[in-house]
């Protein structure tokens, strides 16, 4: 009953959240989960103590082709925004 899926995790600036979700809508991705986080990367420390320095983690379970298309859709943001996109294997159990 377990199905093989990809988990795409997007770490990015909080202001990007609505734009990333618009990308999901374009690709027909329905399900996603968002949580608040802070961090550090090539764009410096993002301490999360006000909106402009907060990060979000956006997780999407999807199949491989969708994850490829998602990655493509996010490429334009990569140039101007703090963004890290990673992918791993998961089984969806229900």
């Amino acid at each position, binding site marked *: 009953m377990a199905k093989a899926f990809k988990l795409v995790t997007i770490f990015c*600036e909080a*202001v990007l959240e609505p*734009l990333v979700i618009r990308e999901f809508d374009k690709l027909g991705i329905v399900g996603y989960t968002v949580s*608040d986080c802070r961090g550090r990367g090539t764009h*410096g*420390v993002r*301490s*999360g*103590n*006000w*909106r*402009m*320095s*907060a990060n979000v983690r956006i997780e999407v379970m999807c199949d491989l082709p969708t994850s490829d298309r998602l990655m493509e859709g996010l490429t334009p*943001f990569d140039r*101007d*925004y703090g963004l890290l996109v990673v992918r791993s294997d998961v089984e969806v159990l229900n």
Partner: protein
Amino acid sequence: MVFDPIVLFFLLGLLAGLSKSDLKIPAAIYEALSIYLLLAIGLKGGVELSKYPLSQLLTSSAVVLAAGMLIPVIGYPVLRFVGRLGHYDAASIAAHYGSVSVVTYSVAVATLIERQWTHDGYMVVYLALLEMPALILGVVLARVGEQREGQPGGWSALARIQWGRLAHEVFFGKSILLLIGGLLIGYVAGVKGYEPIAPVFKDAFKGLLALFLLEMGLVAASRIAAFRSYGAFLVGFAIVMPLVSAVIGIVTARYLGFSQGNAALLATLYASASYIAAPAAMRIAVPQANPALSIGASLGVTFPFNLFIGIPVYMGMAKTLIPG
């Protein structure tokens, strides 16, 4: 003392941030305090408005708005050609300085009250009016100046702006929504309806403003570090531009026949730089601009400059140049 003691809370926050203290104000509290300040200022203004005829505001508003737009128009070429910044950064920073800071305004009001100057509560209408137009102007400047691969820059680039989305962000962005919403509620409620909510929205205002300044100090501390690498020009700009803007404010106020208190407030509005609405709007609309530059300048330099030096100076200007 030349400044109101509540600005010391900003210094305390700054010290905590720079000394890497473990003091942290939770993000939820920051959000709540900024919602509170915007609402409280709007409400107060609305109650005051309900005492005055609206008609006189309509005529002066157009003048205040037009004069205010001079600020980004002056700022952009200075940043671009004197400071040699990229055009996206120049446009974004110009937009920050054309917009206004709610907290700077609030501290100016507190200082006026402490020094027993009078002012009119409806000045908050200008605060609401001035917040957004400069941001739109900034986006326009950014698009007109751009040269994308295979795409023409210049005025035809304006067609590429998503006007609908921008308009939505202008009118339904939380700061405008709360200010205007507060204004309308205050106007409808009037003095009598305001009374039972005044312990929260009026009496507690200055204390909560102090807490917000503490938080702003913490945030500014992190910006100062990011900002140090960007050289002296921007620091100079972040100090001189407010003074120039304040002069525009005083001249406009004099032309419109404002009182000394109102003139000092208009000068402060012009001189202040946004760090609530502008950073968020620019990050989305002009993503090529580096937010470390604009937020560093507005929050790391101009905001404390206005708090400690600017506001007293603008009051001095008003006293000298406006008939009492």
